[in-house]
């Protein structure tokens, strides 16, 4: 756009970067985009609070939403995901479209009473979803 302005100073100013991304959004990203949603679980709901002393509540979170056709870096999706989209669209619709799934987790510390009455504190991996991706 700088080149155009040099050649023709009176031309309409180019669309600024901000507007451009908004402009492009309407084509690339679905309204219900794949993203992380909150879900607060209380162990008493499952009646596990008799064995789980702490924490009382826990937010595992979950991923939900549509995976757009043009994925790119926005979802941290591997190339395979785009290939799968192409297969679904052009070769074999029985091959599923990529799904919106967790991509990263954080651990959770849990304090429980064992059947023999002993008490255990343990840190479990992958208990809380923190990021979503399309795969």
């Amino acid at each position, binding site marked *: 756009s700088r080149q155009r302005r040099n050649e023709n100073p009176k031309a309409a100013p180019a669309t600024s970067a901000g507007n451009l991304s908004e402009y492009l959004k309407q084509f690339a990203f679905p309204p219900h985009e794949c993203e992380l949603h909150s879900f607060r679980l209380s162990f008493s709901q499952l*009646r596990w609070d008799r064995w789980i002393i702490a924490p009382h509540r826990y937010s595992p979170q979950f991923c939900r939403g549509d995976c757009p056709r043009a994925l790119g870096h926005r979802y941290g999706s591997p190339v395979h995901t785009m290939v799968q989209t192409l297969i679904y669209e052009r070769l074999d619709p029985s091959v599923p479209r990529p799904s919106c799934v967790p991509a990263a987790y954080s651990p959770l510390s*849990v304090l429980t009473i064992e*059947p023999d009455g002993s*008490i255990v*504190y343990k840190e479990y991996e992958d208990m809380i979803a923190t990021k979503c991706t399309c795969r």
Partner: protein
Amino acid sequence: LPRSRGWGDSAGAPGFLAAPEDAASQLSAGLQLPQGEAPVHGLLPPLLKALHDRGPRGRHGEAPRLQPDSRALRYMKRLYRMSATRDGIPKAQRGRLYNTVRLFAPCWECELRPAHLGKGDVHSVDLLFNLDRVTTLEHLLKSVLLYSFDTSVPISSSITCMCHLSLKENEFSSQVCPSTSHSLDFSLHFDVRKRKWVEMDVTSFLQPLIAMNRRNVRMTLNFTCLTGDPQGSTKLGNAVNVTLVPPSLLLYLNDTSEQAYHRGSSLGHGRKSSSPLVDPPRGDRGRGNPQGKRA
């Protein structure tokens, strides 16, 4: 995971997150593999396996469950608050390698009381700890005997107990009277006002047993308590008849299973940490730590 009915089955909502009225039985039902396949136990992470067994109508029904001692529960809740954030996320503490801490109360103890116990006489307690719950993938980093005392008995502000701890072992199964494999002398100082717990590091004492996957640890504790603090301002005074609550055994472990959270650094990485552990929640160290310095 092999396809099993209800677990991630696209038709039904994922059993884990949904919360029907009777979620536990839904979980139990949801986790059954079709007939003829090995029970699902091996696939479940320990947390779910433990809960899956104990559902109201768990596979084995309501297993009788012993309730832990309230003091032990208070101690572990404090350890939890110091180790995890309010949301339950493990705190990042440099040099801390344990991801599991187990507290065992003695499964029986008999106080070997002579007929008439005068002040200053030696109290003797025989303790048995059953460590069945420790899994093979949980490796011992540190073991601590956790002492507290019966505050219902009026005690002067500070007392010192001289203790002799001996480990009992049956070299061969037919042996009737266990022999003492090794023993440990130490003193414990209680300052009643300031704290409720005293931790006695017995890692080197128990390490050989736990390394050999010994599941029953039997020890005898002989102790005599006097008022005062030999290293503090008050001299040792007369004997006091104190009820030393039988200690709990605390094991700091590194669980190397897949489900457990593993911190980034290992022992050999980067700065050589002097101790594989960050100090556990403070009670006070038993002054008489036999090694003289931290294990």
